[in-house]
């Protein structure tokens, strides 16, 4: 066998796994890997902050479905990545994070730039490794990719001491990975599928409640088939958007805290809830005992810990969403108990009730003439990009308006930090997405607060000729927190007023990007059009109605039927 050094072996592993782009930031402990990367065909994107590297890799992973890779140095490089690793962990995003570490002889000695990153990231990675022996490098890397992308995906961190990656090693042949202790179950139990299908046939008011698992397992087609075949209305979580076409008449939009009136009412009145790749998060369920109180619950999820964690499930199906839905479709297609016309017709009254709810309280806002409404900006963005752009977001009101008013028809065109709600996610994630799909329009919907958390990545976008567009919905507030203060804290705006905000137009220009501003509704369309037509990174500063709130809203801890409406 031919001998190569550890860094070269790692690069070869990355190539074996199909990695084309990685995001990194160097330092003493990881120079060897950067050095080896120079001789490879992998694009090494130099970010401006390690959080940006990991978010960018995460953005790439969400839009491509492939494993995102980030490369960080030891100590502060690694700790800077932690927020972004936790972000990926909460949303089950497949990633491999490689961190440099001090030489093995110094580990535990409080050496320069030494932190126990394996210890620090244990609760926010799917798994992690410290490689102490060079002969373990290749097997560990292969295992890391395997763990990251299989089962319920997630980030895996591999800590690489400097001396280990410098050693000469044999590059072992690739064999199928079999881990005694890790064998996720993909195939559904046929008995459970049958039980679920029979239950579905008996339901009068069924609802499909769809989460990010449908996106992760590429199950959108099977889901769409099932919903249409049985005429079952669908609602999506924040993470599930795009899992079912947003413009389909069966779509009720998002549910939960800022979900649609129709979706929340439908769940509350359903007699059967079919949860697919969703985890009954508190932002979805509101007060638990009032969540789907009359419903039998079917839950499909690949992670057994998700099942009956918050809500007791009647028919659990531990399996890959795609396989389970496909098995259900097959059951209906072949069962003599199933008569499509009859079942469809039997759900018409339920659909009519839901349509009434949707008509009574549609997703809407009050027009205020020339005062720019953020919802209008998103609607225009949807219109001008034909609902086909990749949208990333920051966190807060901007994120919720994007979720409510952009009509996602396809999976993997939406990247948002759902579980952790990390401000600063959107811009680097947009860069990751745009690097993966240079021909697609990629837009970060941002708030004036969040955008400042990773604004430095504008330089990365510029350096790699990666023309992402940033829509800042500028209310000059930490708006979502201000909204809570308005509604529940007597309008005491403690710590939410940003008295100093940069001039985003000038800031864009300082980075060599383009800055545009709209202060009136009549300017919105022109600014969007110009930005979309510009072959450069553009920041659009939309000065919006300052105290606009996101509605509907289910106050924390309330039943989802207790919505505050426009």
């Amino acid at each position, binding site marked *: 066998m031919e001998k190569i050094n550890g860094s070269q072996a790692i690069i070869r592993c990355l190539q074996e796994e199909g990695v084309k782009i990685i995001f990194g930031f160097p330092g003493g402990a990881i120079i060897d890997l950067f050095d080896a990367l120079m001789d490879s065909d992998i694009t090494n994107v130099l970010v401006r902050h390690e959080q940006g590297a990991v978010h960018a890799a995460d953005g790439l992973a969400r839009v491509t479905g492939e494993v995102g890779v980030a490369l960080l140095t030891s100590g502060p490089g690694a700790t800077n990545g932690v927020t972004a690793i936790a972000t990926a962990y909460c949303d089950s995003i497949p990633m491999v994070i490689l961190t440099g570490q001090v030489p093995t002889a110094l580990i535990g000695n409080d050496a320069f730039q030494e932190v126990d990153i*394996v*210890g620090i990231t*244990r*609760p926010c990675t*799917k*798994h992690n490794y*410290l490689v102490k022996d060079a002969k373990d490098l290749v097997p560990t890397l292969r295992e890391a990719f395997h*763990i990251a992308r299989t089962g319920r995906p997630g980030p895996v961190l591999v800590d690489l001491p400097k001396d280990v990656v410098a050693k000469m090693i044999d590059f072992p042949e690739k064999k199928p990975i079999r*881990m*005694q*202790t*890790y064998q996720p179950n993909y195939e559904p139990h046929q008995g459970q599928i049958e039980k679920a299908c029979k239950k579905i046939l008996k339901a009068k008011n069924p609802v499909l409640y769809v989460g990010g698992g449908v996106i992760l397992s590429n199950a959108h087609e099977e889901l769409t088939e099932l919903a249409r075949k049985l005429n079952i209305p669908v609602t999506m979580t924040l993470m599930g958007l795009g899992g079912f076409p947003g413009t389909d008449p069966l779509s009720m939009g998002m549910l939960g805290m800022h979900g649609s009136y129709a979706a929340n009412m439908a769940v509350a009145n359903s007699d059967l809830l079919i949860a697919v790749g969703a985890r009954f998060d508190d932002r979805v369920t509101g007060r638990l005992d009032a969540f789907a109180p009359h419903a039998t619950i079917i839950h499909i999820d690949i*992670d*057994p*810990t998700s099942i*009956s*964690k918050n809500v*007791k499930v009647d028919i659990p199906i531990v399996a890959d969403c795609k396989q389970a839905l496909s098995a259900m479709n097959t059951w209906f297609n072949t069962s003599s108990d199933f008569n499509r016309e009859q079942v469809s017709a039997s759900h018409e009254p339920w659909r009519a009730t839901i349509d009434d709810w949707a008509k009574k309280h549609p997703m809407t806002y009050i027009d205020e003439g020339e005062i720019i409404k953020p919802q209008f900006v998103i609607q225009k963005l949807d219109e001008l990009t034909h609902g086909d752009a990749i949208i990333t977001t920051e966190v807060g009101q901007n994120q919720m308006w994007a979720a409510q008013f952009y009509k996602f028809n396809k999976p993997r065109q939406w990247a948002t930090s759902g579980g952790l709600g990390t401000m600063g996610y959107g811009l680097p994630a947009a860069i990751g997405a745009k690097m993966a799909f240079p021909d697609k329009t990629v837009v970060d919907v941002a708030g004036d607060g969040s955008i400042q958390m990773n604004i430095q990545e504008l330089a990365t976008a510029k350096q790699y000729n990666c023309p992402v567009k940033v829509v800042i919905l500028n209310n000059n507030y930490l708006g979502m927190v201000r909204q809570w203060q308005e509604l529940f804290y007597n309008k005491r705006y403690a710590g939410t007023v940003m008295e100093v905000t940069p001039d985003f137009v000038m800031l864009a220009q300082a980075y060599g990007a383009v800055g545009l501003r709209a202060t009136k509704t009549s300017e919105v369309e022109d600014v969007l059009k110009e930005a979309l037509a510009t072959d450069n990174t553009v920041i659009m500063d939309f000065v919006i109605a300052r105290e606009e709130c996101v509605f509907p809203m289910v106050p924390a801890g309330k039943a989802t039927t207790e919505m505050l409406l426009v």
Partner: protein
Amino acid sequence: MKHTISVLLQNKPGVLSRVTGLFSGRGFNIESLSVAETLDSSISCLTLVTRGDEAIIEQITKQLHKLIDVIKVTDIGDSEYVEREMVLIRVKAEAQTRAEVLRVIDIFRGKVVDVSPKSYAVEVTGSTSKVQAIIDILKPIGIQEIVRTGTIAMARASKK
């Protein structure tokens, strides 16, 4: 409800902290924990005693199982099992109490493993309740120090 859970895991650095981190991070409690190698030195057996309703115990076992380094999780309480704990007790033993202490030790089938002019060190093995019982009885006489191993447990072999 008290549950005794047996976990087989890879005998590798950091694995124990994955288990304890899971318990602290998710607010599960650990009443006792004991861990050592199995016959196969690459595998450890960890016995832990915890409390919780059915839903919590279900989460605990599933979450343990989800850890990549965990091989097998058994809620031992689901079957017939034997459990043992050992305690070392240093109890005051002066002229007027020595005989009484020895009598108690004898009743509990304990052993004196260290003697000094003013104390005995006693070893007792048994179920947690037996261990607790001797502690309670010796307390009024004067316990200076105790060390308990925590429970270890094993399912009974099937009788068939």
